[in-house]
């Protein structure tokens, strides 16, 4: 399985991301809450560079026990990266499309070797 070097882990802070170019392939690698996640940088909508967009926490409605609406908040647990072309949102931890969980970005295995970080492109 071909491996592509991403970054020294010591130089890849929490919350940051890298875009790896390998042949015609682009992979977005995210460092999020102590783990690394890698997805193809190709939006399922119109092919935009989805991994390069802003990261925003999921917006949630807040309902009372009687089902009345109290307001909105940002999720403490779930964060999305947003395709800069049209706004398609993807769950950082799964690559699932927030608007339709049946859709999921192609993901890649991430391998640590000492302080070096690789993605497996095979």
């Amino acid at each position, binding site marked *: 399985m071909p491996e592509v070097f991403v970054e020294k882990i010591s130089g890849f802070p929490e919350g940051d991301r890298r*875009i790896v170019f390998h042949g015609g392939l682009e992979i977005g690698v995210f460092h999020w809450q102590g783990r690394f996640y890698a997805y193809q940088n190709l939006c399922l909508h*119109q*092919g935009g560079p989805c991994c*390069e967009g*802003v990261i*925003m926490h999921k917006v949630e409605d807040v309902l009372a026990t009687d089902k009345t609406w109290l307001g909105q908040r940002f999720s403490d647990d779930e964060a999305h990266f*947003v395709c800069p072309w049209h706004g398609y*949102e993807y769950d950082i931890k799964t690559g699932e499309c927030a608007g339709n969980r049946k859709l999921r970005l192609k993901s890649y295995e991430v391998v640590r070797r000492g302080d070096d970080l690789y993605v497996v492109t095979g």
Partner: protein
Amino acid sequence: MELQPNDFRRMSVEEFDTTKLLAHASKQAKERGYDRFAIVDVDSHHYENESMSEILEYLDDPVLRQLALAGAKPNAKNARILNTMVGYQDMGGRIPRYGLRSLEKTPPGKDQRDAALTKRWMDAVGVDVAVLFPTPMLALGVHPQVEVEIALSRVYNRWLCERVLAHEPRLVSMLYLPFNDPDATYRFVEEFGGRKGVVGFLITSTRYRPVHANQYMKTYALLEEMGLPIAFHGSYHWHDQAQGMLNRFISVHALGFVWYNMCHLANWIINGLPERFPKLKVMWLESGLAWIPFMMQRFDNEYMMRTSEAPALKRLPSDYMRDMYFASQPMEITDMRLLEETFRVINAETQLVYSSDYPHWDFDLPSTIYDLPFLGETAKRNILGGNAMRLFNLKLGAGKLARVA
């Protein structure tokens, strides 16, 4: 929850480059061979408010000019001449090009900035010719002062003709009509109808004037005589009482951009304007496609029962609609079978014209048409360029104009 442009194609926050943003679109253009045929975009935009100082140079009225210039100063706070609307087109920062656009650099002293930025994205996606429209002025039809609508749209039209269209063969436009004043509307067609790059006229649909009012007949007759299309461009209006019932921008956008065009189309057909002006070409912009089969079925069904209320018609309402032209964006792509049926009922191969709406948030690339599994190559090329070239009588000459980045 912060803007992170540093990873943006390795762009720093000090720069923003449309070519880099659209690198994947350029790849699509090369993979699909857009160099083999012409692509015409019938609905694209620029931000005329960012060139307002140039535009206001054309404003002759000294009092309005003073009001406009005073309102344009950075410390003017709530003073402004151009009406604005509540809205969240940038999705709260999720679409970074809204916030970063002002950082984009253009070569000094060559092209007008709006033209340079427009040609940059056209080259990136493979568009040869674009029909260019303003952005904030899409709301000018609900400006409380009719005289301001007339004045601002006239200076915009003059600026566009003289500073942009006169110098840019790849840019054309359908010029804004101040539809709240029927006489001024007629004068605009007379004044601008023969200018270089003017391929038709535009009615921003968000307004409250009936298209069948007798005062407009002379304008339609003139357009028909000149062979210039008339286009209706959708937009939203959250201050409209009906749309005011909607609490989220997604709802206002989804319904608003269709609502006014539905009203105008209903009036256009039921009052028999296609029979009165059979050679006048009519276009509908930025309402997507899903509304069209609804209108066809709804009005055909009711017309069969209430024929006496539309005595001017000699055919079914849907038959008149099939003579009209529809711009594709924002094309609803979530149900391919429904979309295929929609293409069938509107005779898409001859009546559908590709539009991007770039740089707005819901733009469509040419691949939205080119990749449709139910279209043949001829139909794809007609929709992406051929139909618009015939509609606007465009002569592109030999070779591809777009230089795909």
